[in-house]
C-alpha cells in the first residue's frame, strides 16, 4: 500500500501565513489512491485553509503540492480542478437561481461517450434528486442542497474529491444516507473528508490525519488515532 506509486497527492513543508499567524505550518501530508482519508481537528485548526492550499483557492506561502506525480504548486485553481481535484464547499455553494439540471450540467466533465442529459440523470439518480431535476435549486430544502453540492462533486469525476464538512447541519437519517453515498463514491474516487462528526469519521474513513494549530499531530488508522495521547490532549485539553 505505502509505495510511491500509490500516492495520489502529497505535500512538502506546506505553510500559509496570514499576517504573521501561521494557519498552516510545515505540513507534510500524503493521501493514497482509493482511500477515504478523514482530516479532523478542533475548530480553527486550519483544516479548510489546508485543503484550500491543495486545490489552489489559496496560494501557499511556502512548500510544494504534488498531485499524480506532478508539482501543481504554481498551477492556478481551475487547472488543478481540471487535472482532477474536486472540492465541495463547507457552506453550500450552488447556483441558486439555476435548475438542478443546470447545476450538475455545469459540473459535468465533457466526454464524447455519454450525452450530457444521460450523465446528469445518472448522477442525480445516485443521490436521489432525479425527480427534482427541473426544480430551481434555491427552492430545494437544505438537505437536498447538500446532496446537490455532492452531486456536483461527483459529476466532475475527480481523482481526488475533497468534501468539506458535507454532513454539517443534516439530520441523522440524512447523515446515514450521506455515509452510504460517500462509501459508494469511494469505489472510483479517492476522498479527503473534513468532518467534525466522529461517528461519520469512524464509520467510513480508512485513515485519519489530525490537524492542530496548523500542524499535523497524528496520522494513521482509526485505532491508532483513537488511542493517541497527543490527539486526546488536543481534543480534550489537559
Amino acid at each position, binding site marked *: 500500500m505505502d509505495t510511491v506509486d500509490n500516492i495520489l497527492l502529497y505535500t512538502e513543508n506546506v505553510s500559509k501565513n496570514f499576517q504573521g499567524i501561521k494557519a498552516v505550518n510545515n505540513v507534510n501530508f500524503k493521501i493514497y489512491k482509493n482511500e477515504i482519508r478523514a482530516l479532523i481537528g478542533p475548530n480553527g485548526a486550519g483544516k479548510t485553509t489546508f485543503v484550500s492550499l491543495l486545490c489552489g483557492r489559496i496560494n501557499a506561502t511556502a512548500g510544494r503540492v504534488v498531485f499524480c506525480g506532478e508539482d501543481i504548486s504554481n498551477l492556478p485553481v481551475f487547472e488543478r480542478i481540471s487535472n482532477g481535484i474536486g472540492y465541495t464547499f463547507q457552506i453550500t455553494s450552488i*447556483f441558486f437561481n439555476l435548475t438542478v439540471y443546470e447545476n450538475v450540467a455545469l459540473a459535468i466533465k465533457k466526454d464524447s461517450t455519454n450525452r450530457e442529459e444521460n450523465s446528469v440523470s445518472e448522477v442525480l439518480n445516485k443521490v436521489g434528486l432525479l425527480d427534482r431535476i427541473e426544480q430551481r435549486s434555491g427552492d430545494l430544502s437544505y438537505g437536498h442542497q447538500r446532496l446537490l453540492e455532492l452531486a456536483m462533486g461527483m459529476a466532475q469525476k475527480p481523482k481526488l474529491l475533497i468534501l468539506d464538512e458535507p454532513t454539517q447541519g443534516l439530520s441523522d437519517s440524512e447523515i446515514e444516507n450521506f455515509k452510504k453515498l460517500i462509501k459508494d463514491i469511494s469505489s472510483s474516487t479517492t476522498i479527503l473528508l473534513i468532518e467534525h462528526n466522529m461517528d461519520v469519521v469512524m464509520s467510513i474513513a480508512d485513515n485519519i490525519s489530525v490537524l492542530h494549530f496548523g500542524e499535523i499531530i497524528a496520522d494513521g488508522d482509526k485505532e491508532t488515532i483513537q488511542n493517541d495521547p497527543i490527539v486526546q490532549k488536543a481534543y480534550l485539553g489537559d
Partner: protein
Amino acid sequence: MRKDLILHLGALAILLFLELFGVFSDYHQGNFARILVLAAYGIGYNVLFGYTGLLSLGHALFFSAGLYASGLSIYHLDYNVGQSLILAICFSAFFSLLIGYLALRTVGVSFMIVTLMFSQVGYLCILYFGGITRGDEGIVIQQSSRVFLSLDLSDPTIRYYSALIIFSLCLIFNLWIAKSSFGRVLIAIRENSDRALMLGYNVHLYKLLAVIISGTISGLAGACYGILFGYVGASFAAVPYSIFPLLWVLIGGAGTVLGPLVGAIFMFYLIDYASDITDAYMIIVGITLLIVTLYARRGLLGELRYRYFKWIP
C-alpha cells in the same frame, strides 16, 4: 419548434410585417430604425451585464469605437460601407480585448469606475484630436458614401430593413449564446463566480471573452448607427451613451434576449411623449422609471419570466 425560437422569430416577424404592411408612419419608421440599432447596442451591453454580471459604466467607448472607426475611414480614407464595417468590427474587437484585459484586473465597484474612466479618456481624445474627428461638431457622412450593394442606406425604408437585419443578427447570436454551454458558464459566473472557478472554469478568460463579444457587438451597432443616420459626433462617446444601454437592459430585463429591445422602445417613446407634455420631461421620465423599478424589479420581461414564463432565455 421550441418555444423560445417561436417567441424570438415571432418578434422579428412582427417587426418585419409592421414595415411590409405599411403600419408605420414616416415618423415612427425613423424612430424604430433608430431603436433597432440602439437595441443591438443594448444586446451587446446585456451580454456583459445581464449574462455575465459585470456592470460597465463605459460602454460608450465601444459604441463610439465602432462609430468613429467606420465614420473616419469613410470620411478620410474613402472606404466603402462594407470595408468600413469590417474595419469597425476588427477595431472594436481589438479595443475591447485591450480594455477588457486592463479593466478585468478589478472587480465590482472598481470595475465600474475603471470602465467609466476609460470611456472618459476616449471621449476627451475625440475632442482633443479635433483635427481628425472634428470634435463636438462631428462629421456628416454624405449620402453618396452611404451606399451598400447599390442600395441607398439613407432611404428610410432601406434604412429600416438594414437596421432590422443588424438587430436580427445580434438577437439570434445572443439567443445562441444564451442557449449554449458557453452562455451557461457566463450565467454561472454571474450567479456564483467562486463556484464556477471551483468547477474548473477559467473565469478570467470567460469574462474577457464576454467583454470582447459585448464590445464588438456595441462597436458594430455604433458603426451601423453612423452609416444609417449619417452623423458621427462626440456626444455618442459621452457618459449618457454609457448609461442608456444600462437603462434599456434594466427596464427590459437583464439577462433576457428581448429585454434590450423592450427597454429601448419603452425609453425612447417615454422620452418622446413626455417631451410633448412639458420641457421638464425628465421629471416624468424619472417618476416612471421609479414606478417600473418599484413594481418590476427584474425589468418588464424579467418580471414576466420570473412570474409566468420560466423558459424565456
